[in-house]
């Protein structure tokens, strides 16, 4: 039976994994994602979940254990935050290149220095180009739902890729929200058992990952790229099925709020979208035509959906909660791909990037109002800077006056 609960993002992830019937779990402690493993270890200890719970000796091992288990034919689950995500870097490409669809829960966290527990997308954004599926949830419900959907997407034989199932540290991972746990039988119907085509099985010997010569490299790499060509239609299919089966209303890639008649838009992923919508409600009352477009998948980067959504407005601010030091915009990461997604359009909006919420700082309503002012000015003057570090630049501070 489906059940209403009041869960944090960590508990939501754990119950998503449980209802996905994960078989091998590898853990290592780091805040804030630790809560997921604490919950799962209880479920295993109580006998509510029949899985091997392996205490990894670090994140590098966690990912190695998970993709090893996946290679042997078990549904595998792991997770991390911050420096832990960085520590496992070597293992991301082998998992994706080996086409081993294990899942890694991320409750994001700033990297060191400075030592900080706060949310920042920088940790796992650093691994975005390794061939993993990746996207952020904005609520515990979405964490639970994504956990289940990601397995079905990643394990689909047209895809076969591992998944970073991300949520904002603390803002989502530690703030309880009302949500629904679905009926196990219904989840089983939605998510068939993991059935890899080439497991490590002595009855059907296969070799995984032999050395190649350079002239074989492109031919092998292109296969990982082709999987990303297939994936958008798989995601659309899976999200549609999930919506139908469980009565949700997710759009596959871009979640829009008041975008239809908007002139300016906030473009972002994760929990700050909720504050952005509050800001929009307030600004709309003052006659500002502003909307929110929330990115649900960073990988695959949904170019077409972004073009459709953002071409409706005249100016877009990517609200960045990760860094790209020295990058083209001198701001964050999302702007770079957003701009290049919009570049082929005849009519494209001005795009700027707002550096906000770093180190887990709350992005306040006032900051969103300031962003809206910068964007409205950009519509009037036809130009904007590449990036604005919120609360550190004249244009932004002036708006507070």
């Amino acid at each position: 039976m489906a059940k209403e609960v009041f869960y944090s993002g960590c508990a939501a992830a754990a119950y998503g994994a449980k209802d996905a019937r994960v078989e091998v779990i590898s853990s290592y402690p780091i805040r804030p994602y630790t809560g997921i493993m604490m919950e799962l270890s209880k479920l295993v200890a109580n006998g509510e979940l029949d899985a091997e719970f392996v205490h990894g000796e670090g994140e590098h091992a966690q990912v190695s254990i998970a993709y090893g288990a996946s290679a042997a034919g078990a549904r595998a689950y792991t997770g991390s935050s911050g420096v832990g995500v960085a520590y496992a870097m070597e293992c991301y490409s082998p998992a994706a290149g080996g086409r081993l669809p294990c899942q890694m829960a991320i409750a994001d966290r700033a990297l060191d220095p400075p030592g900080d527990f706060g949310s920042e997308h920088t940790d796992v954004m650093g691994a975005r180009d390794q061939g993993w599926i990746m996207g952020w949830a904005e609520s515990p419900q979405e964490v639970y739902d994504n956990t289940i959907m990601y397995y079905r997407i990643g394990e689909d034989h047209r895809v076969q890729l591992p998944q970073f199932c991300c949520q904002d540290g603390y803002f989502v991972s530690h703030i309880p929200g009302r949500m629904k746990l679905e009926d196990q039988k219904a989840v089983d119907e939605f998510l068939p058992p993991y059935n890899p085509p080439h497991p490590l099985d002595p009855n059907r010997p296969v070799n995984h990952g032999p050395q190649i010569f350079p002239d074989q490299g492109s031919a092998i790499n292109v296969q990982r790229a082709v999987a990303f060509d297939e994936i958008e239609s798989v995601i659309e299919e899976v999200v549609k099925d999930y919506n139908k089966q469980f009565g949700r209303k997710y759009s596959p890639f871009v979640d829009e709020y008041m975008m239809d008649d908007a002139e300016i838009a906030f473009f972002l992923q994760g929990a700050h979208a909720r504050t952005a919508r509050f800001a929009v409600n307030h600004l709309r009352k003052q006659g500002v035509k502003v909307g929110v477009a929330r990115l649900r998948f960073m990988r695959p980067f949904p170019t077409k959906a972004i073009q459709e959504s953002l071409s409706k407005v005249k100016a877009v601010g990517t609200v960045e909660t990760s860094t790209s030091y020295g990058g083209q915009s001198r701001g964050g990461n999302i702007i770079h791909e957003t701009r290049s997604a919009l570049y082929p359009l005849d009519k494209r909006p001005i795009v700027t990037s707002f550096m906000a919420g770093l180190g887990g700082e709350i992005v306040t309503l006032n900051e969103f109002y300031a962003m809206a002012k910068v964007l409205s000015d950009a519509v009037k003057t036809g130009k904007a800077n590449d990036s604005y570090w919120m609360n550190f630049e004249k244009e932004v501070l002036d708006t507070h006056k």
Partner: protein
Amino acid sequence: MAKEVKTQNLEMAKSLRQVTQDEWYVPGHRTCQGCGPALVYKLVSKATGPNSIFLGPTGCMYVANTSYLCAPFAYPWMHTQITNGGAVASGIEAAYQVLIRKGKYKGELPNIVVMAGDGGAIDIGLQAMSAMMYRGHDALFIMYDNESYANTGIQTSPATPYGANTTFTPPGKAVPEGKVLFPKDAPQLVIGAHPAVHYVATASVAYPVDLINKVRKALNYKGPAFLHLHAPCPKGWLFDAAKTVEIAKLAIQTGMWVNYEWEKGEYTYQHTPKEYKPVKEYMKHQYRFNHLTDAHLAKMQAFIDAKLKAPGKPIAVPVQGPREQA
């Protein structure tokens, strides 16, 4: 009671004649002539048979063994990073445990074997190896010891002997002996700290039946086991490629290598010579030691004399750390 996941009892061979002629490590590799680690692979594969999954951390036995579309393994094999052989093995073993428990896999637990070099075992791969041993996964971790980071062009590793000329320890005016440090004792790292381990042994390509039987004994245990296998490397040690087995035998005759078993706390020794030859008899055939003076050889001899008082056990050796030397 839970279903037994492993009931196998691999038989001990009395002679090579009793060892199967079937091969599961077949032609298709590119190892050097006289490669000791390749011989290890052949023997270990005969010992395990085909109900096995092998893991190859990066190193010669990955790079020189596998070419895409042409790999020499007739059982399932997977590359691992040089860093994570023990961790990937842990994941595979955990997967089989749960799949067997749930009835999703019908057979018995396969033999899960990590074939790591010295670097992949006790240097960059030490953490993953130790954790696999500690958690008690039913898998066999083999360290084939060619006494260097061979694949990258023969650099010093913690298994490289004192005095070796490697491409990171070239002898020169300021450092005449080349490598100044003495090696880590690999089996002790495992024996000394892992309560779930009941079997650790050393073996050498010089004694193939002994090597095969130790692999089988290790696999008959339910739980982790560690084997340290001496595997001379003609390219790295610079000796005649026809003499791999001879060099391995000389190592035993001079005490540079000792074959022993550690089984539930008890040590037994094999192939102990009546009288040890001087280490020089082993070293003089290898160009990597060619630059050493009598004083250096005496230092090596003193180290080996001390170790031979209790091989495989933690005892004092006459070694000064680099910061102690005036």
